[in-house]
């Protein structure tokens, strides 16, 4: 044990003397700090924008109140008035922005057909979206392994190349002990950095202290452990430092670039979602066909879904708002199978990709962190589902005005239903990622242990 601590201490002195590595460590800390800052400010900006929405809705209502000073036809109000469905981020979102930059985080809704409004896009600079987000998740997933590679590529091979290894092994030190001390030092450094950055990020983002904190730290720790295991495995091969660097970087490329890229191609081909374009076209056809169909036919189909309005006055006018909204509703109904297939297809796509996370720990970690932060595709689909229910509530609010022909007064604006939705955290998804990471750590650990059984060559 004493030898171990001496070796460990000398690793520390060695590290302090290596200017490049100290610089790299500082750089990683700096970059991690920037990632935390960037991600949380980005989410802060989204929160600010969300907070402005009620004022926009109020201004819009005031404009309508000026336009209709007296009691108005609710049909007019439903046609013009925008309300907002808002998707609030979790405090975690700032650490792993995920897909929150390409999915809209609020929707402007009117009483019209929902399917024409549900897929509207937020203003996004596509060039920026392509470059991606510099958040803590990026630093952990992409840069942490590179740091491990920089620490581990000359583990043992440096001593061998400088001719120190024979001298070292001539001392009363077992080779296994030497490797263990070197690895333990690097492990302490890597895990200390990764967990320290995570803890700083969690504190800065003010996440609630619950089981998710432990889950995040466990995920990040295992990922760091995986890359240390890869470093050990390559060192156990006992080749030159240049060779090790190339192999380690090759592993990085394989797990962070090639495997995810190929998975992406595979998932897109295996689970095509052609319904997006089709459902928009379908719903427009159904809605506009409503103008040309006999009113009685439209109303009969509508009453089948809403029998409570069956006994209201028959429509004799050329135009009536309740007829108009009835065929808007029927337009959504006709697109519903396609919309359901679309959402289901997207969910399957995500599940297929997440299920293949064991092929690359990077995919497993990224998917898990996004699931934990509620910034992935399922979170957006849940928001869309919630927005759909909100639109149903709007309909339920307006229908009594329309069918009982109650005038819409200024006081009614305040009674309009409001919407809020906060991303769910998918701890189940994150736990699945944990198992995938454990599998990876186990695999490289076992392989590294086996490889180390070979005697260590001094030169």
């Amino acid at each position, binding site marked *: 044990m004493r030898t171990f601590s001496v070796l460990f201490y000398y690793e520390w002195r060695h590290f302090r003397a290596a200017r490049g590595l100290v610089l790299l460590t500082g750089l990683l800390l700096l970059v991690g700090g920037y990632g935390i800052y960037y991600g949380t400010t980005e989410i802060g900006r989204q929160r600010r*924008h969300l907070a402005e929405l009620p004022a926009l809705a109020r201004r819009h209502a005031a404009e309508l109140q000026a336009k209709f000073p007296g009691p108005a036809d609710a049909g007019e109000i439903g046609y013009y008035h925008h309300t907002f469905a808002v998707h609030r981020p979790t405090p975690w979102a700032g650490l792993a922005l995920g*897909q929150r930059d*390409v999915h809209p985080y609020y929707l402007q809704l009117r009483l019209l057909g929902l399917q024409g409004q549900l897929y*509207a896009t937020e203003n*996004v*600079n596509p060039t*920026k*979206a392509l470059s991606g987000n510099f958040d803590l998740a990026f630093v952990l997933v992409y840069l942490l392994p590179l740091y491990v590679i920089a620490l581990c590529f000359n583990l043992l091979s440096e001593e061998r190349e400088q001719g120190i290894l024979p001298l070292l092994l001539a001392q009363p030190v077992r080779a296994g002990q030497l490797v263990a001390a070197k690895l333990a030092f690097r492990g302490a450094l890597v895990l200390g950095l990764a967990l320290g950055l995570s803890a700083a990020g969690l504190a800065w983002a003010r996440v609630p202290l619950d089981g998710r904190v432990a889950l995040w730290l466990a995920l990040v720790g295992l990922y760091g452990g995986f890359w240390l295991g890869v470093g050990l495995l390559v060192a156990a091969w006992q080749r030159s430092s240049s060779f090790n660097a190339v192999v380690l970087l090759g592993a990085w490329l394989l797990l962070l670039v*090639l495997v995810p890229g190929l998975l*992406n191609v595979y998932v897109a081909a295996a689970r095509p979602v052609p319904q997006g374009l089709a459902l928009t076209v379908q719903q427009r056809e159904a809605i506009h066909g409503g103008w040309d169909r006999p009113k009685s036919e439209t109303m009969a189909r509508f009453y089948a879904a809403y029998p409570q309005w069956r006994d209201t006055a028959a429509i004799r006018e050329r135009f009536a708002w309740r007829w108009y909204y009835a065929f808007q509703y029927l337009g959504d109904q006709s697109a519903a199978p396609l919309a359901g297939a679309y959402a289901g297809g997207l969910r399957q796509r995500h599940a297929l990709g997440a299920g293949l996370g064991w092929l690359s720990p990077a995919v497993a970690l990224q998917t898990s962190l996004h699931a934990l932060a509620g910034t992935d595709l399922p979170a957006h689909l849940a928001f869309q589902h919630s927005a759909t229910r909100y639109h149903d509530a709007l309909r339920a609010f307006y229908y009594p005005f329309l069918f009982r022909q109650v005038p819409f007064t200024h006081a009614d604006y305040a009674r309009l239903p409001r919407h809020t939705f906060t991303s769910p955290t998918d701890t189940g998804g994150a736990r699945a990622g944990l198992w995938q990471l454990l599998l990876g750590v186990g695999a490289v650990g076992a392989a590294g242990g086996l490889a180390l059984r070979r005697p260590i060559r001094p030169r």
Partner: protein
Amino acid sequence: MVTSIAQKEFVSIRRDRRFVVLGALVLALLLAATLVGRRAAAAAQQARAAAQHMVNEQFRHQPGRHPHRVAHYGSFAFRPVAGLGFLDAGLNAYTGTAVYLEAHQQNSVNFSPAQQAGALLRFGELTVAFVLQTLVPLLLIFLCFGAFTEEREAGTLPLLLSQGVTMRQLAWGKIVGYGRAAALVVGPALALAAWLLAAGAGAGAGPLALAGRLAMFALSYAVYFFVVIAGAVLVSAGQRHSRTALVLLLGAWMVGCLVLPKATANLGAALHPGPTKAQLDAAVHEQAQHGLNGHDPQDRRAAALKDSLLRRYGVATEKELPVSVAGLTMAAGEAYSSRVYQRHFAALTRTYERQNALSAWAGLLNPYQAIRPLSMGLAGSDFAHYVHFQQAAEAYRYQLVQRLNALQAGMGYGDKERRLGAATWRAIPPFAYQAPGLGWALGHLLGPALALLLWAGALGWLGLRRLDKMKM
């Protein structure tokens, strides 16, 4: 002299098993990316063309309707896949594919592939451009890092120099030799791309324009690879040990391909925040309602229009007018709100261009950030091309709605009670997008092209000149 050095390098690279294996891997990846990219692009193009055809047919086969109903029925514009999109998908995954064109409002372009993909997409797409921009340089680094250091470590450098070769000649020879090896890896993939283009010609833009784009594409990458090879050889010449040269070059690769692009894009967006869709829509609505100057409300504009019509035709009431006031009011309103929208859209585009400017300037520091915009611009999948599509779709929307408004105006008083025959809709031309030509694209790519040439000039001329002054 340079040729024989180049020949020696080329032969020894071909005999190096490691390079043969790595090179074959990259070549296989390139060929696979070309084929897969081609298939995916063709499938996407087919789906969008089919959708466009369907909505065009639906528009043509409308029954007799009032023109304003048709304006609300509207149409769709589906963004065609760019000609070389299968080589460089560029922004294709992050830009929408379909926009609904209707009266009174400009809708967002929806259904971007990124919205339909899980987080996997954010790891990057395995396109030809990706392999060329990031993986081939890595291969070249492995090839070149020992260019001088190995000679130095083996003690062959003084022997070479004693034969009367200058350092500069030696470096040129090595660059040419490595360049030939790079061509061996990249050439077949580009040839395959050219063959695929020639075989599938006739789809979209003219084959000649695409050939021009492909030629410029290949030329840009040739310059890029020269920059990478020359840079790596120069770093190798300046170092004593192969290991330090390798670590330095790999570090530069990571910073250049991984850290800087993301950091500059994020910083640019933070420096120039753009309006959200809700803010933009509210501003457009506000100005369309109350006038661009805030003192010209819509109802007053409409009343003034009606008065001027009555005066012009010398009649007292709307009933006697030969034109429909509603139709003309609608046309004037559309013209006004479109003007307002255009202003805001132009401002938004400018904001995004300002956000991207930081990355563009970084091209002077980082060749990767010069080739990336150049490549996607030539492929037709960059921001400028996307804006071009959006503007074309909006121009079509505007003329369609105004044409329908004019039809309504011509119907005279009481138009709401009447409909126009089904034949009317068949006479309206459908949306047909014409992607801009090579000249237009090049006009937007001067910056990155210049940055890349500057790199090539600086390394090829200044860098190599410094070699001769170097002490061995």
